């Protein structure tokens, strides 16, 4: 809206017959009639945005072992050696966990195996999935399985099993060979990249291209190399990337000087990378930046988005939860990482000692959720970007010592505001080619991407 129109609007000088007023009236921002039906419409919009609350916990992360054969510099879970003992899940705990998972009222259940390196306890992984499949004969939920793995222990037998049970694979690719090896060496070799590359091909042979996805983690060494990282993802046939910053937990916090960086550095790299990805799309190749897409969906559509790390109220426990090898249940993976550093603030309880209701309908959780809505947080409550953003009480606590947090010094807030501002700037250009790229991302429809060669 032109600033002159805005000034006239807020000074009640705009006529209800003007186009500027009528546009806003169509969006229920102003009205010159009975406000009751307008409020009803706004209520529907608000309920739609919050409809992720209808389902309760759908993402259940399970950690069958803390043992790992990787030696990642920024490990956030404070892994144990492959030969370590006392950090593997037993069948009794696994059964109890799966029983609890199916207590969730959600019609959609995703069981995501994490670690450590999950395949070091593959027998337990199989047990968890097979028991879940058996229970689901009676529960009849929409069930999905994911295994997070570094791919080093993948073989044809495991992949055959994955294919039979419709299991997706999520792995890590930090970038080109030198960078990936620097960030993610294995315990017995620095060259994890070659193993990754060869086993990725094997995975695709059995599971297809869409059966494997990859995530990257940005370390200090990654900064200045986002273009090369993106090119590496394209080279390996991935059609998306999630440019995410380092979480302040585990070794990442302990070795911050070595692997960490400030939010300004990350943002500078992110904006440049996003522009590069847009250029790739405008040149005809569909390639998605996933965090931008999440924000775009919130800005351009009325629909709810289920991203547990950026919701209001926070998705902690009520959308995603994690069960550790010992049966401890945490509100999020980041909460588990805090616990691995000795802080059990976000421990919900243990599956052997508490019932489903005691774990998921506790006063602790009610309080946590009640203090994690952006509508009720200082600064967030007045923020123009409120409906696009979310709260992360675990991160607030980790970085600022308090689950409510202080937006004036919050790197999380700065990051989200900067990215949202940049996207709004791009939307405001009203460039039909960029708009097409955005809608192709939002709708997951590469075929929408019919654009002429264009340089940004």
């Amino acid at each position, binding site marked *: 809206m032109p600033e002159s129109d805005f000034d006239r609007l807020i000074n009640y000088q705009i006529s209800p017959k003007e186009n500027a007023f009528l546009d806003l009236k169509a969006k229920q921002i102003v009205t010159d009639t009975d406000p009751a039906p307008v409020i009803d419409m706004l209520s529907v919009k608000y309920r739609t945005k919050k409809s992720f609350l209808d389902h309760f916990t759908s993402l259940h992360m399970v950690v069958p072992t803390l043992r790992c054969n990787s030696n990642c510099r920024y490990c956030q879970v404070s892994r144990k050696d492959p030969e370590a003992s006392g950090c593997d899940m037993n069948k009794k705990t696994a059964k109890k966990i799966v029983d609890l998972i199916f207590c969730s*009222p959600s019609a959609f259940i995703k069981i995501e195996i994490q670690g450590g390196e999950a395949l070091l306890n593959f027998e337990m992984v199989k047990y968890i999935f097979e028991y879940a499949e058996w229970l689901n004969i009676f529960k009849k939920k929409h069930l999905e399985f994911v295994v997070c793995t570094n791919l080093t222990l993948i073989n044809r037998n495991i992949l055959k099993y994955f294919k039979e049970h419709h299991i997706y694979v999520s792995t890590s690719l930090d970038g080109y060979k030198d960078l990936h090896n620097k960030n993610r060496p294995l315990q017995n070799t620095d060259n994890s990249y070659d193993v990754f590359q060869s086993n990725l091909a094997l995975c695709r042979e059995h599971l297809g291209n869409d059966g494997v996805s990859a995530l990257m983690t940005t370390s200090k060494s990654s900064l200045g190399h986002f273009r090369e990282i993106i090119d590496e993802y394209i080279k390996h046939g991935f059609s998306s990337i999630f440019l995410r910053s380092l979480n302040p937990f585990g070794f990442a916090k302990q070795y911050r000087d070595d692997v960490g960086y400030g939010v300004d550095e990350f943002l500078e790299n992110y904006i440049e990378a996003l522009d590069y990805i847009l250029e790739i799309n405008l040149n005809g190749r569909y390639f998605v930046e996933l965090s931008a897409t999440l924000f775009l969906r919130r800005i351009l559509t009325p629909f709810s988005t289920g991203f547990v790390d950026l919701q209001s109220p926070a998705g902690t426990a*009520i959308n995603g939860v994690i069960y550790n090898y010992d049966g401890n249940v945490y509100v999020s993976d980041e909460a588990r990482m805090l616990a691995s550093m000795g802080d059990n603030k976000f421990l919900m309880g243990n599956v052997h000692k508490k019932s489903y209701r005691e774990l998921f309908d506790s006063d602790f959780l009610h309080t946590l*959720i*009640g203090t994690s809505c952006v*509508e*009720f947080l200082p600064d967030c409550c007045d923020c123009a970007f409120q409906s696009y953003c979310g709260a992360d009480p675990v991160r607030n606590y980790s970085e600022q010592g308090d689950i409510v947090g202080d937006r004036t010094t919050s790197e999380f807030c700065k990051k989200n505001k900067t990215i949202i501002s940049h996207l709004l700037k791009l939307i405001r250009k009203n460039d039909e080619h960029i708009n097409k790229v955005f809608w192709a991302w939002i709708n997951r429809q590469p075929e929408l991407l019919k654009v002429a060669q264009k340089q940004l």
Partner: protein
Amino acid sequence: MNDLGKCSDGSLALTDSKKIYSKDAILATAYKFTDQVFIDVSDEPEGSFIIHFRNKGNNPLEQVVGEFSNKLIDQQLREKISKDTRELRDVVIKKAFAVVQK
């Protein structure tokens, strides 16, 4: 405006108006600094609180008082927002847990 005075024993006394800050906000803020300084809060009849700060460690007292004043604004705001949004918050929490409680 807050008033900061130095006492003969080296402690600092911060005067905060009751028109701006509630007792709860002052106490909640004071609690956060009890690891750094000794704090004493007194409720004065003239419409203000006086908060005495005595050093516990090596932090410059003026620095602590400055941070205290900033944190007090934050705490007061939290109290206000919590009061203003109580009904909506209760609705959202009820909605979030409704399906579990069925």
